């Protein structure tokens, strides 16, 4: 096991971490497994393609999450809010339909070819790190992921809104009785979750090229991560995401078959042994 493989794992884990924290927030607050999260991630990547190739990558890093936040707002207002009294599975299935719509619209706009985005000049090439020449861009992903994780966790634990989010994720009725405006909070959470998905898409674009199937590829893995991490726990999803990324990247060298099955085995083990997830406090 050499340093490059572990770093690959951490880079992949960072991407998964960003994706899954957004999903975990939406799942925790609305109780909805957002099957459209993969499609949102994909949209972020494709938007980044357009912006990065016209203007600059750094601008894409700002614009794509904003665009996705708007999409998230639309989802919240037109879908999650009217359907808030339906069962969670029904709303989940609706997001499944939305995912198919979004993925098709993206292909209609950008085409079916595989597209690639070049990393920004600052981050291209390799850097000598811990004794190996490692692609600078992936180091950038790791850095951004770490900053984001620290920022998100700090914000959730220190700010007032973060307190409201944690309260509403734990018990939405009591929180609203205590005076938390759950609908407005939900808007914030869904926008943020969607923006995070878009950000992951932007970051992934130079790393993994863009193709119409990229949403589906990660969707199942990310859903599994959120369930393993624990429903309503963003920290748990982050830890699970990083852990899974590292395990997958490291095992892929000696057994590709096993490394692909790792998420499924992990999910089976967790659901059978500890259904509320590793860090979750609420039964689904």
């Amino acid at each position, binding site marked *: 096991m050499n340093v490059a493989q572990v770093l690959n794992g951490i880079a992949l884990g960072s991407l998964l971490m960003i994706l899954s924290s957004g999903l975990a927030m939406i799942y925790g607050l609305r109780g909805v*497994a957002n099957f459209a999260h993969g499609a949102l991630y994909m949209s972020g990547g494709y938007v980044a393609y357009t912006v990065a190739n016209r203007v600059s990558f750094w601008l894409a890093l700002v614009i794509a999450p904003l665009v996705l936040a708007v999409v998230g707002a639309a989802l919240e207002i037109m*879908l999650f809010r*009217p*359907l808030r009294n339906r*069962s*969670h*599975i*029904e709303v*989940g*299935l*609706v997001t*499944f*339909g*939305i*995912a*198919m*719509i979004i*993925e*098709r*619209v993206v*292909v209609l706009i950008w085409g079916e070819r595989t597209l690639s985005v070049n990393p920004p000049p600052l981050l291209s090439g390799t850097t000598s790190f811990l004794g190996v020449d490692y692609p600078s861009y992936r180091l950038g992903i790791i850095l951004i992921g770490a900053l984001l994780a620290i920022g998100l966790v700090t914000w959730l634990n220190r700010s007032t809104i973060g307190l409201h989010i944690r309260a509403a994720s734990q018990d939405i009725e009591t929180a609203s009785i205590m005076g938390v405006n759950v609908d407005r909070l939900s808007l914030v959470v869904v926008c943020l979750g969607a923006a995070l998905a878009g950000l992951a898409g932007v970051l992934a674009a130079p790393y993994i090229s863009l193709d119409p199937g990229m949403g*589906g590829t990660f969707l*199942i893995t990310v*859903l*599994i991560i959120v*369930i393993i991490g624990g429903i309503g726990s963003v920290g748990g999803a982050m830890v699970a995401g990083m852990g899974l990324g590292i395990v997958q990247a490291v095992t892929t060298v000696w057994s*590709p*078959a096993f490394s*692909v*099955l790792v*998420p*499924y*085995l992990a*999910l*089976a083990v967790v*659901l*059978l042994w500890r*259904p509320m997830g590793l860090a979750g406090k609420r039964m*689904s």
Partner: protein
Amino acid sequence: MSGTIHLERELATDVGQPPAQRERRLRGTVVGLGIGLAVLLLGLATPYVFTHTYTMSLLLEVVLLSMLALSVGFLARHLGMISLGHIAFFGGAAYAYGIAIMKWGWSPGAAFVSAIVIGTLIAVVMGVLVVRLTGMGFLMLTLALSQALYQLCIQTSMRPITGAHDGLLIVVDRDSRFFGLTPAEVMNPGLFWPLAWVALVLCALLLWVVGRSRFGTVLEGIRENEERMRFSGFGTFLPRLAAFVLSGFVASVGGALFAVNAGYVSPELLGFGRAGDSLIAAIVGGLGSLVGPVIGTFLFVYAQATFNLGGNLPLLMGISLVLVLAFLPGGITGTAGRLYRRFKPFVARRFGGSPTADKESR
């Protein structure tokens, strides 16, 4: 007085229904079976009505995929559980048929039976793991397990057994016969139709009868309130598992027949795409009724044949799913049933006649 005691004893020992109602239900089942037999015989005439091979091949596809949709629908209707895992039994049985013919050298008949057995065994294994969960956990784990099987199948290390991404081409001995059909005839949709149609109708009737039986009532009790069922003395694990395996059996039959007819199995028979398509078809058709999934599958195959040239089928399916879930709960059959019930009093009043006794819904 002794008559009253007799009645009470009967109620205490037999769940739910007083004798008169049970007799009515039995009569309903017999009538239903009669209708099913008529449908079976009528359907056999289809190849003579639609002589165009393309139309027949589409109808055959509807029939085969309907078995997958039926199995998902049965579980959803009676247990209230949505499964994305039944594709593992459909595709698994298809692959088992291919492997039995190509790698073990069995005859088509033996391979067909073993395919159904293997598919049902996969259902048992998955069922044991999955059936204790409900709702989202159940959905996710069935999805994860079926996709694990898919991933296992496409690994390059599995190429000698499953052919990995290329799939398996099934070449059958020229002298062998499958239910009297030669290898060439088996691929002809018009000639294969009787086998598939009979299988579909029999499976549908099986699921219908089981649904109306005491076992079906137990399942619905579990669906409504599992804890109360347990407090009343019913074990809930075995009935759930039995329902799961039964639906898995139906899916396996569909998959095995699919492999026999197509002569080729590919990994997409196990994939998420097909599982999702089948679930959407069942939902749009209507999960609340027996024929809902079949209707949904019919629409799906028809739409696929008409719209897929533009590649816009997923868009259409997504929109249909969202519309049905948001505005038309119960799908097509559910909405039709509601409309019928809404207008029945008007029709009855208009045409006179005595109000009919309140029939149990489906």
